[in-house]
């Protein structure tokens, strides 16, 4: 049991600490550890777990960690896999963050941050662009985007309402038409 927990911790620590670019970039690394190396689950079940990760809100990496951790070693497994995923990088982030606050008046740090901020703006814009390339299959998707922009800037509504409304719209517009095609 302890061996299993340790393996879970190490597997998710390795996957998480080698994946730059946020949760989605960790998915292939998690697959290498859990399917190829430790064979806790096969390709098909990994695809199921990933589908759940994509369907639920929140970070994908921690959802995969919970799913696989529970399967391998129950609740303790969930804990071990989550600790491996989260703790090492959070520790470093907190230390760097406190350094930034502590030295916020140093001209060196100010100069570094001044140069890094435009980079971050572009990185976030690029994320929107990359995700957008695959997310506008039809005119109705553009319609949703235009309505979202209008609501955000004209009505100043909380995005929660827009997200829920878009999901209901998606259910009505895309969810039912394909129902007959489902084999079961």
């Amino acid at each position: 049991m302890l061996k299993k927990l340790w393996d879970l911790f190490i597997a998710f620590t390795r996957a998480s600490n080698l994946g730059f670019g946020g949760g989605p970039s960790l998915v292939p690394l998690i697959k290498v550890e859990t399917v190829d190396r430790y064979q806790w689950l096969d390709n098909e079940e990994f695809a199921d777990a990933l589908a759940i990760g994509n369907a639920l809100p929140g970070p994908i990496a921690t959802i995969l960690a919970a799913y696989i951790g529970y399967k391998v070693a129950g609740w303790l497994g969930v804990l071990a896999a989550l600790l491996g995923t989260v703790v090492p990088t959070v520790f470093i982030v907190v230390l760097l963050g406190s350094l930034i606050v502590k030295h916020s008046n140093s001209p060196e740090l100010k100069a570094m941050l001044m140069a890094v901020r435009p980079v971050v703006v572009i990185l976030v814009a690029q994320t929107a662009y990359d995700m957008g390339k695959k997310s506008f299959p039809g005119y109705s998707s553009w319609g949703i985007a235009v309505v979202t922009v209008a609501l955000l800037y004209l009505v100043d509504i909380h995005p929660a309402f827009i997200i829920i409304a878009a999901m209901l719209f998606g259910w009505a517009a895309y969810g039912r038409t394909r129902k007959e095609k489902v084999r079961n």
Partner: protein
Amino acid sequence: MFFTQLWDLFMAFTRASNLGFGGGPAVIPLIKIEVVERYHWLTNAQFADALAVGNALPGPIATKLAGYVGYQVSGWLGVLVALIGTILPTVLAVVLLMGFLRKYTNSPILKGMLKGVRPVVIVLIAQTAFEMGSGSFPNLMTWGVALATVVSLNWLKLHPALIIAISMVFGLLVFR
């Protein structure tokens, strides 16, 4: 006072994480709304700094932001509370509803809902970039940095973490 702060942290990250469909990056705009606009824990520029640190390191971005913001607001307890808010609800859902989820994640209804929400997520992320942009371009040279970033990402295919490191060295040499 301290406890209301911890509770606010918990609620802020629970809300952000549980409305973000599409993994960590989809959560970023919602975290920004909570942290910058609702609670004013960070300014737009400080949020950009947090994202810079987060993008320079490996691992999930949502939990890194939770750690960063949690610590600035209430120290290590804040880190713990923000992390729990970020991951606990979905983790519980995964374990307790595993059978149900495995059955329905491939249903056309859920796929349709996710298809409907995706354009919203993208607009939110684009808006985040736009808003962080105000305050991040104080002079012409910073526009040059932005342009160089676009080129490095799309044509040179440099890794984002590497671009962040290079820009910091550049800033140290040029902006000081």
